[in-house]
């Protein structure tokens, strides 16, 4: 029983990491940038969702509202911040670090502004369906209709996005704009618009992550809530474990991270909460430096 529950706990946590990891991978695949403000955007989208729930009363309406809000905000960031960044800081040693610093700064700005507008106290979003565990033979599983829903959403998103990237012209344009922007431009692809679209998709995915993360707990969130701080780091590590280039990798990475951490905490010690991701990441990258499904950087000779 304990074994089964440990597995289920890991899958639940992992599915939320996957959502976040998908957002990171989307940004990476379309603009080759790591967006540390991702969790901040997810947080902002959650606030959008909260406003929608308060006014319209339904989580199911609030979800698309948050996704659209998140997508628009992300697109705005790409248009304003990232374009400037590419113009000013794309050569020299600063190039690798600049997007990290800029998005970190953005994370801080988002948090502060949220605190100023909505205040620092906890707000609540109530879950749309039951979060009470399924019962089998009298004992309760650590798995509920809500947690099942999150898993389903992850899989659906994965399938939809994969179809987009692999089977549509838009997806081809997205991939081309990231790998070879000049050639793509010559082929007539509106590279800049396509990159913005990539960010918008990531913003929507982040919104889903933020909302489900919130209702999966007891529904509370605030600018300083622990869950969102953990979301940033866990999501990024999950994306790295999976290999930043692959959406499937993001999902696998998230699940792998969630399950491993769950087993470490259950059978070793729950005090190892923060050291476990590092060890897990190190082991994975030692065996496969490009992540589970990452693509090894070819020789550019």
């Amino acid at each position, binding site marked *: 029983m304990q074994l089964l*529950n440990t597995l289920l706990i890991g899958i639940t946590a992992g599915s939320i990491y996957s959502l976040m990891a998908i957002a990171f991978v989307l940004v990476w695949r379309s603009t080759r940038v790591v967006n540390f403000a991702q969790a901040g955007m997810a947080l902002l989208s959650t606030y959008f969702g909260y406003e929608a729930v308060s006014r319209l009363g339904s989580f199911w309406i609030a979800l698309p509202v948050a996704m659209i809000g998140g997508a628009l905000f992300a697109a705005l960031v790409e248009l304003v911040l990232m374009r400037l960044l590419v113009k000013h800081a794309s050569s020299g040693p600063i190039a690798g670090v600049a997007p990290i610093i800029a998005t970190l700064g953005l994370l801080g700005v988002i948090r502060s502004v949220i605190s100023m507008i909505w205040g*620092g106290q*906890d707000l609540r979003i109530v879950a749309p369906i039951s979060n009470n565990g399924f019962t089998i033979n009298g004992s309760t599983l650590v798995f509920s209709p809500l947690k099942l829903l999150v898993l389903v959403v992850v899989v659906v998103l994965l399938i939809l996005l994969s179809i987009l990237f692999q089977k549509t012209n838009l997806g081809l344009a997205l991939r081309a704009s990231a790998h070879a922007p000049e050639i793509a431009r010559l082929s007539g692809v509106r590279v800049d618009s396509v990159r913005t679209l990539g960010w918008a998709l990531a913003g929507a995915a982040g919104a889903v992550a933020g909302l489900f993360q919130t209702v999966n707990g*007891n529904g509370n969130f605030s600018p300083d809530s622990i869950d969102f*701080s953990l979301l940033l780091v866990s999501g990024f590590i999950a994306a790295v474990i999976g290999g930043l280039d692959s959406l499937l990798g993001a999902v696998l990475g998230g699940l792998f991270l969630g399950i491993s951490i769950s087993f470490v905490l259950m059978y070793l010690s729950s005090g190892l909460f923060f050291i476990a991701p590092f060890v897990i990441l190190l082991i994975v990258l030692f065996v496969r430096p490009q992540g589970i499904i990452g693509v090894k950087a070819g020789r550019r000779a």
Partner: protein
Amino acid sequence: MKALQRRTLLTATAVLATVGLAVTALPAQAAEVGVTSSQIKLGMTLPMTGTASLGYNKIPGAAKAYFDYLNANGGINGRKITLVVKDDRYVPTEAVAKTNELILKDKVMALLAPLGTANVKAVATSVNPARRGVPVLFVNTGFSGFADTKKYPTTYTVLPSYIMEAKIMGEYIKENFAGKKIGLLYQDDDFGIDALAGFKTAGVNFAVKVPYASGSQGAAAAAGWITKFKAAEADVVILFGVSSATSAMLGTAAQLSYRPQWMLGSVGGDATTIKLTGVPAGVLNGAIGFSPVPATTDMNDEYVKFFSDIYAKAVPGSAFDLNVLLGMNTAFMAAQALKAAGPNPTRKSLMAAIDSKGATFANSALVPAGYSKTSHVGLTGYWVGKYAVTGDLEPINKTYVTYTTDSGSGAVVKSTYKRPAMPAKGLPN
């Protein structure tokens, strides 16, 4: 002869003039740092932002609410109390930097209720208020080490220590749950380690102990804790963590239909805070809780009524919870101490006042304070209650039964302390 006389006269005049200048240059009365004829400045450092700030960032508003009331009613001997608050985000380096600003730049008279064991320790070693003679009043942590007057000669605790709480819990368990399997959830830092020491002294044997890394207490972690407690078949589960841990635990337990006998430590046991996170009152009902001050929902208590009235006017819309009550109580005690320090308070007279009269300062606590010339220990115990159907902590059978003990090997005793009446209008007498 004449030359000698003139020289003597000149020298004498010069000497007299110098002495006269020196004497008139002396201020009419030696003023203390942070004290003017119209104002007394106190300083506070605590996390106002960041993950450790939840709940605690209400404390400054609470303290200021009381001080504003006090100032509107004459202050302390005509002086208004000003509280300067700095955000240290729970990082020791920032606590030191901000405390340096408070002492060296803002020039406060004393530090009030700094929060966090690691932070208070860093300030003690780096800023060294002891060497500077700066009083550190009513530290906001239960770490028992701060009562050591040799190491921290100007520091005064107020909260009962974690060791005291664990011992009292242990005593209650011995009286009521002998032979049952006990489980413990604790934060793996100062908090938890102090508590473990207390439980050891009380002779409690745990069937299962679950530590959690501070900062990891989300819903996912809680599911893991519950699975462990279930596997060990614990009858009684003690939650010795912060509010966010308690909420995560109780909320998740509700979803998993897990209902052991809960025992909540005072730090994470505030009913209002827990209920605001969505934990149903039904989950709290029947849990056992501890607190040194009256229940925050007990409107029959004169202090609770008085403080909540002031707070509702000062910070409308904000819930009156344990953080607020403790914050206002600490401000209240500080006011008493400043009043007892005399018409021209100095840092020395302030500390002397607490040493000699601190044990009799009026305050809302239902247990006595232990201040004396040899002890800087504040409150020394708790009352035991049960969370009612409403989810609020209430004394068992409507009567407060209090226990007191020390942070060493002293026994736990039922206390006969009768709290003196609140001074008129809630102003220090």
